[in-house]
């Protein structure tokens, strides 16, 4: 489904990610973990077309999308839940969803909105409210809902749990699990190694732009000390 070959990206002379190769299949969850500044957000934003690719390829269903502009990617099935949520604060909840579904027709817009209100009933209650006035957890739900409006095949989620109450995080993870069961491929950036390991099928550890460990979640469980050491050396 999604395949990265030697992907590098960065900002001008700064390299944020060096040579990342991985595949992500439908219905699978890949967790991208690493200390602050490891390049996780840069990777996600590069996949969305918002951070400059320095080298390598991004293949979506076998098609090279590396050179497509950001706005052409959602219609191919790529959607993003960005770091810091970044909901359109001055727009209402309903309007945020409409923008999320910018690439789909009117019928799909209705259908997807109804589905999202089922996932997150709170959003239905607050549909006329400005997104900026929502709580952090509600904003995260809205950011997920906005991404789901385009019927994505691949969902990129950056820092889902940051600053949220555990109950809210559970609620969001619950939806991600359902999506993955429905065949959506998910790439997840996560601060909490615990959560990442329990939710993911595949784990990729980044450190200062380099991939330091990659493998299945089962292997990650077995090598937990190794991974924690990798993370610990840079956070501590």
């Amino acid at each position: 489904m999604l395949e990265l070959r030697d992907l590098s990206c960065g900002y001008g002379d700064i390299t944020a990610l060096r040579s990342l190769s991985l595949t992500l299949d439908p219905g699978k969850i890949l967790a991208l973990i690493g200390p602050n500044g490891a390049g996780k957000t840069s990777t996600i934003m590069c996949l969305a077309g918002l951070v400059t690719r320095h080298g390598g390829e991004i293949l979506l269903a076998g098609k090279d999308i590396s050179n497509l502009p950001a706005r052409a990617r959602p219609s191919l099935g790529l959607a993003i839940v960005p770091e810091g949520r970044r909901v359109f604060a001055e727009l209402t909840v309903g309007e945020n969803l409409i923008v999320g579904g910018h690439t789909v027709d009117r019928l799909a817009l209705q259908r997807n909105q109804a589905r999202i209100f089922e996932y997150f009933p709170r959003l239905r209650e607050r549909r006329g409210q400005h997104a900026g006035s929502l709580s952090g957890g509600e904003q995260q739900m809205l950011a997920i809902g906005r991404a789901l409006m385009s019927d994505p095949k691949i969902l990129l989620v950056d820092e889902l749990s940051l600053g949220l109450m555990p109950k809210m995080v559970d609620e969001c993870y619950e939806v991600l699990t359902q999506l993955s069961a429905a065949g959506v491929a998910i790439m997840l950036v996560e601060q909490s190694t615990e959560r990442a390991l329990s939710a993911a099928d595949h784990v990729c550890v980044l450190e200062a732009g380099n991939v330091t460990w990659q493998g299945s979640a089962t292997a990650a469980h077995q090598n937990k000390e190794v991974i924690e050491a990798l993370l610990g050396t840079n956070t501590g």
Partner: protein
Amino acid sequence: MLSVELFVQGIVQGSIYALIALGLTLVYGLLRILHVAHAALFTLGAYIGVLVTNQTGSLPLALAAAALFAGFVGMAIYKLAYEPLLSRPPYIALIASIALFIASEEIYRITFGPYGLSFVDPPLQGQIQLFSGFYLKHGEVLVIGLSVTLLGLLAWLSSSTRTGIAWRATVTDPEIAQACGVNIQSVRYLNFFIGSALAAIAGVLVALLNNLVEPTMGSVPSYKALAIIVLGGLGSIRGTLLAAMALGVIEAFGTIYIGRMLDRDAIAFAFLIAVLMVRPRGLLGAR
């Protein structure tokens, strides 16, 4: 009775300010550029209005021609002058904009002559009586009617159409809007088209009220519109409308009551300074 008359005159003037200043607010909101050259499109609209009316005798046709033509020129200004400068600090675009505005006055002078143009047969010169002793020119009725219609249309566009909602999303966060599939380049073109068309319509209306268009008729509106968008809180559409109306009304009363001390065009700045002293972020901004 005098105060009602003054108030209505203020609303007429305020409507014109609003039509001009809106484009400026839209550009500032989207690109953080102070689009001084915007007033050049106001003048352009006025010239087209007079020329087309004199040729065809139709004011509606003249309004449409002015709006369309200025709309496209506005898009061209974005493409040729601002887009190449977007990665530079905003004052570079401001300098380009000022240069463009000065150049436009010279272009009008060279093309249409220094003395200005008038309607051969000025339309809408009749008056209606609102109540005993108070008359309103047909042209002034048109100013209010057209402004309300256009602003209503804009409000509908921005809140009830997918394009309009995507436009507001782009103003809030262009990156994420793109990631949602919004073509922000089209949004920018639309933004310049609409803003420029509104300014051009204001130009035709002023030509109608004064029966005169001159190469420099954009100078005063250009700096007043800047004052208005600062008063409105830079980038706020509601703030801009409120500031435009307030300035129109205050000028109308000011010319009568403090006109001896303060020139009409200076009132805008006295008002600006007074407001910013109490509300540094504009009329609707937080204190």
